[in-house]
């Protein structure tokens, strides 16, 4: 099974034998892949059918609602806490990010960039809420309730004193282009950040 490109990026950032927590782990593809590299951990997933797929994949999975936080986990109990393409769907992203940084020594957070030029044109010129490959739903039925741009995210990290250790920004084909490298907030569709507490 080939791994989704953003998950491949995440996988490449994690050294062997690390302990990880994957929030909103979907069908467990990332954890399954990491298992082969002797990286152990747990997934959290609320969706019934995805949860069952995790069991079938032999993933340790806890059925839980991310909006309720990560109370069951002790401070700094994981090397990495991963939140991939889910940040925009939670009730309080700020609360969840703080939980991630409490439980994990490092956080890996990926999200669709609302600052992408197509979003800007659709809203700025078209006057309509953007619909794109990475944000396919209409405004009324979208699970994506807290959208942000790269700048927004980085500002929040700065506010909480989190350092950006690594960043990967790609387009919907998961390609890194010159345009993205020059103007990531305008040309990047998906971003993945590796962040760490500034004082650790």
């Amino acid at each position, binding site marked *: 099974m080939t791994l989704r490109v953003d998950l491949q990026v995440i996988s490449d950032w994690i050294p062997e034998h690390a302990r990880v927590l994957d929030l909103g782990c979907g069908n467990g593809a990332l954890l399954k892949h990491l298992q082969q590299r002797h990286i152990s951990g*747990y997934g959290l997933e609320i969706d019934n059918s995805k949860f069952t797929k995790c069991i079938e994949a032999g993933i340790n999975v806890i059925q839980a609602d991310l909006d309720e936080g990560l109370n069951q986990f002790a401070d700094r109990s994981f090397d990495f806490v991963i939140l991939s393409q889910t940040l925009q769907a939670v009730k309080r992203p700020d609360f969840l990010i703080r939980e991630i940084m409490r439980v994990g020594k490092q956080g890996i957070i990926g999200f669709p960039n609302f600052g992408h030029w197509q979003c800007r044109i659709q809203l700025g010129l078209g006057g309509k809420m953007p619909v794109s490959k990475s944000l396919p739903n209409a405004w009324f039925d979208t699970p994506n309730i807290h959208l942000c741009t790269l700048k927004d995210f980085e500002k929040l990290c700065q506010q909480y004193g989190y350092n950006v250790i690594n960043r990967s920004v790609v387009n919907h084909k998961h390609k890194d282009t010159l345009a993205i490298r020059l103007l990531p907030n305008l040309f990047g569709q998906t971003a993945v950040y590796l962040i760490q507490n500034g004082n650790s």
Partner: protein
Amino acid sequence: MSVSLPTDSVGLVTPSHLHIDTPLLLECGRTLPQFSLIYETYGKLNTDKSNAVLICHALSGDHHAAGYHSTEDRKPGWWDSAIGPGKAIDTERFFVVCPNNLGGCKGSTGPNTINPATGKQYGPDFPFVTVADWVNSQAILADALGIEKWAAVVGGSLGGMQALHWAIALPERVNHALIIAAAPKLSAQNIAFNEVARTAIKSDPEFHEGRYTEFNTIPRHGLGLARMLGHITYLSDEAMGEKFGRELRSGKIQYGYDVEFQIESYLRYQSSSFVERFDANSYLLMTKALDYFDPAKEFDDDLRQAVSPITAKSLIISFTSDWRFSPVRSEEIVNALLSAGKSVTYAEIEATQGHDAFLLPIPRYMEIFASYMQRVAKEVAI
């Protein structure tokens, strides 16, 4: 006339017996000089004996977990919904073993057994048995069957406590522990309910200090009351409401103390059928085993430390409307396993049926149960 049994049933089954002449030292300090276990098996043990699944029963359960003893049986074994060909515990793949616990009244050594020292029934003199004693006796059964390591040890409620204890006490003999609708120990409220049940039994004039069989009687009233109380705690308010509501048996209020509401009729039926099939001394022993279970006790109440020897992977399941062993209690086990870095999967199932849900074929529950058992089969390569 031949009566056909359901095709997804293990069919007709016959219990087996294991007699052990080696004394068994119990946790309470007393010794059983010899003992027997009655048990049933379903499916076939494979040649490398890697496909064995142990089923641990709950308070009033027994060794008859699946199938039928005769074509006349009205009901199959108590966990027939989960055990059988193509079911969650698929007997086409797994060899399933279910013993009756020591202290029980269905054929394993218990209060109704003749005490070799006196030539009379043990009755109230039967030693206190604990979850640890059950696990030890089940391990002796495993030895006798040539099973070194269970593919899975599975149980609900008090059975789940046995599965947890197996994983803690004999980690090298358990690949997977499935702990369903259980708790790491009873709460004060749980113990309180048990104490009311015991008081009901012991205060029945027919109890005779536990020597009722010598008087050719049984404490029908007390045991029945205990069962009624138990039943209320097994169901949820919602389930009772759905099933019985305030429905009246005769359609109108009678202004009397006979059965008026359907729920009263149901409880009386449950209690009267239970007293015919269960022994009061066994009931007392089982409730005490529940009360005493507390693996964290010897670790300063630190469950994380208690579970640290576990090498098995675990599946923990709870049910939303279970207030006897609520999801919070299962989460105590889950959180201890998580913080000890153990392999654990946890699901809280939406169910209205209360504690009893663990015995019912609730689709989502069965889906998770079956998927997990498929994972077990894959991992032990069967």
